[in-house]
């Protein structure tokens, strides 16, 4: 086929959250410089990371829904989104899918701005949010250049939450149940690599369900782990910001 002529760009973003998040991220990129964060990862322990092979991503959003189900997230909160982009001019068209999770940055801008220390870089590399401590100020949402964070306004899919929405579920090392005003409502929420599953030796829900088997997860401290091997030759989103993401991408590099 001829070389692709790119005349216009079109972003089809799979959720409102994705739209807002990315817009916020663009703004931050221009206005916010990243300083070093004290919370360096303890390299003696496990340090989790994820590799997403874009050549195997088919944009199906199985990851998005596996995550919703696992973390019982309410409407408009998606820890994982897939950004779809179609560009070019007929017949030289190009379509790409970019799944976006939390990058679990080694130098996370979100941690620094949290006034109450609710969001932390854990030793295992995961950036966590303590819902009981979070005061819902949402500074972290504007600090995140990836639009990975969103606020739980306490909405449910139904006026009267359905049986599943109202049932107990786990995030981090705690059990939650959606009820009026209770955490994680009124907290900021985001992907945590399904840390409650990882603690039990399971893979994040998105990795388990992935239709294209595009996702790899594991210990980046182990040079022989699949994820370490796959991470070679990978790239990260907005690497110029110095956030040092622990989510890596394989495949043709996209504009970020």
């Amino acid at each position, binding site marked *: 086929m001829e070389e692709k002529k790119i005349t216009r760009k079109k972003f089809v973003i799979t959720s409102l959250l994705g739209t807002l998040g990315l817009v916020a991220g663009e703004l931050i990129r221009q206005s916010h410089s990243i300083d070093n964060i004290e919370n360096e990862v303890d390299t003696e322990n496990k340090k989790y990371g994820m590799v997403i092979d874009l050549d195997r991503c088919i944009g*199906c*959003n199985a990851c998005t829904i596996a995550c919703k189900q696992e973390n019982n997230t309410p409407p408009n909160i998606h820890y994982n989104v897939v950004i779809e982009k179609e560009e070019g001019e*007929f017949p030289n068209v190009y379509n790409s899918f970019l799944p976006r999770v939390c990058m679990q940055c080694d130098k996370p801008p979100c941690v620094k701005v949290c006034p109450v220390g609710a969001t932390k870089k854990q030793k295992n590399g995961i950036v966590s949010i303590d819902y009981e401590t979070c005061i819902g100020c949402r500074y972290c949402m504007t600090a995140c250049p990836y639009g990975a964070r969103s606020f739980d306004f306490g909405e449910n899919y139904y006026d009267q939450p*359905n049986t*599943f929405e109202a049932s107990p579920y786990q995030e981090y090392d705690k059990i939650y149940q959606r009820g009026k005003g209770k955490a994680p409502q009124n907290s900021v929420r985001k992907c945590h690599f399904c840390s409650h599953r990882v603690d039990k030796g399971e893979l994040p829900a998105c990795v388990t369900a992935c*239709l294209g088997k595009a996702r790899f997860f594991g210990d980046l401290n182990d040079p022989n782990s699949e994820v370490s091997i796959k991470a070679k030759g990978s790239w990260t989103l907005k690497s110029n910001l110095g956030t040092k993401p622990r989510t890596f991408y394989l495949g043709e590099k996209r504009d970020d």
Partner: protein
Amino acid sequence: MKKPLDFLKCTRRGFIAGTATIGVSLLNGKSMKSVAHDLLNFEEIKIPTCCHMCGGGTGVIATVRDGVVAKLEPNKYNPIGVCNTSLNFTENQKDGAAMCPKGLSGIMALYDPDRVKKPLLRTNPEKGINVDPKWREITWDEAFDIIVRELKKLINEDRPEALITFSENSLATSIQRDFGNLFGTPNISFHTNICSATRKAATMAVFGVDEPLGDYQNSKYMLIFGWNPLSAVKWSHLPQILLNGKSNGSKLVIIDPRYSETAAKADLWYPIIPGTDGALALAMSHVIIEENLYNQEFIENWTFGFDEYKKYLKDKTPEWAEKICGVSAKDIKSLAIEFATNQPSIADAWIGPGQQSNGFNSIRAVLLLNVLVGSVDEPGGMMMTEEFKLGESPIRISPPKKKRFDGKEKFPFGHNSGVYVETFRQLFEENGPYKLDVAFITMSNLVLSMPNTSQVVEGLKKLKFIVVNDNYLNETSNLADIVIPGTTYLERFGLVTRGINWEYVALRQPVIKPLFNQYSEAEFFIELAKRLELKDQSGQVAFSNIRYEDYLDIRLQRSKANITLDELKEAPGGVWTSPESTEYRRYEKTVIKTETKKFQFSLSNSSKNISLNYILPEYQQRRWLPDKKYPYYLISWKHITHTHSRTQNNPYLSELKDQNYLYINPMTANSLGFKDGELVGVISPFGETKAQLRFSPGMHPEVLGTEWGFGHWAFGDYAREKGFAVNQLNKFLVDEVTGQALHKEICVNIRKI
């Protein structure tokens, strides 16, 4: 109710650490009961089953916490989520299995508050597209009494054939056949003829099997016409095996009027004029023969009609095809050479060409590419799959002698699912062979899924009594007299046997009791048969001592698997797979099931009454072509986020995709002065609707396209008034060979509103 399986024995009390508050309450004895008991002290079991959010039947492990379905995850013991040949099973299984977003949204379908919970009786005798039926809740006994009364009228008048059934596939299918036989009606019909009957007919004509499947993972060249397996993911292993094929060095080539999700991953995409796939495949065959790249030995030993075909192809040059299909002669030639010289290769076609009036011949021409190069039943080729067969039904009764209402026997390759289009045409025109009075419609929204919405509605209104069995009220149930609450797949039994290249049977089982104590769809027919006291051929009341579980148990024991239902429940992942691995070159050991016992280029020896232009897979123009007044082709497709017209009320899926758009090439739109996002009128000779335009450079400039399943006006809140229904624009167009509904044969114009 359920026992956890050995391999998944993870029932446990005391669900790990809680919050500090809960920690304290643990020490507080009694107060813990009210506050923390539910959170900390619950039983968690994992139950294997099979999805039915679409017909693919993916393996699922459901987690149930204290009676609430809390999680659905892929079941790696079930090959459907892993691969389609046993060769790759162990290796692929290391990566686990897979589930699509629809399957993963199953819990929200189960707990959807819009579900029908009790039988409903219509109190408004007036019926119409927007008429409120004024439902009244009734008891199950009342519902059965009314239905039995209506059916007994037919028995007393000795015209049981006045009963017709319509149903989704893989859902109480054989029970409905048994019921039809017991009751005396031949009019038992299913979904397939509005889906993929053309491909089944074409594969029967060429190979003698009805669903051959490509061994993509081991292929060297994948050439796909009008199929989008990376979004219309029928079986959840498809993305893996295609992408693994690519990683192994195979080329992926997509022929489609639009740049599909699969085209996005392809090495080459050729946008084609709709309905011209056959011309392209014929010209490729011409080149393969001219260049002497065909497999002479295979053709001599295993095929019928090659000389006839060769003669027909003489003038089907790439230059001839270029003018028809829009792909250049040069590209056609190179495609043909690449296809033939990169072995093993696969050429496949599904409902893109299949839902157009020349689909039978188009798909045959594509499939014959495999035959020409001998890539049949070879690793990496087109596999001659035969679905695992359950043993005989315990219900002994012969089929009724009466002819079907839909005239299926007039279609030489008619599918045993019937001919919905003819049924509704005759109902509407009142010119059927006899009168139909009663319809059972199970999990099928015919008003949305049949071409020609307005006449389908009028056709349904001519029936005296309609029973709809569904999870939801929708456009079709609005025309019913009684609505029976259905089950989701998480509440019912079933067996899945389709979709891979070696024999297996997987269990679908209730992971919780039906939420509203309702009968499953199969149990509903069993109960009805009992209440009608329908007798089998020995004069005994059928089903008097057979529950649905027993029925499945008997058929499993009588099958090659020779196991009981309980043994299947105990098997890892609830799956039995044949110890015999995927078999290649079966044609060398068993008889090919075509009429000539060879793979057939030609039907010249067929005993079927077929017209001359179907002897060879001749190219003929499709019947409905664009003209001055309606200058654009309108195609439609399935998107990964939804199944047919039944998942649009799922809030998770609705967030991913809540409406369809009318996709248009920006060049076309600009030349007409339309803007991206503009609401336009879409008109055909048979209807008009409104649609939101979306610019897509991947659309062929002469083609408009959209996703189907949207445009509901009587479904739940998440689904209603979003997008448009493409079937409002077409007519009763049926394929004359197979009886397939021709959803993709529409021409339209758009206008400013």
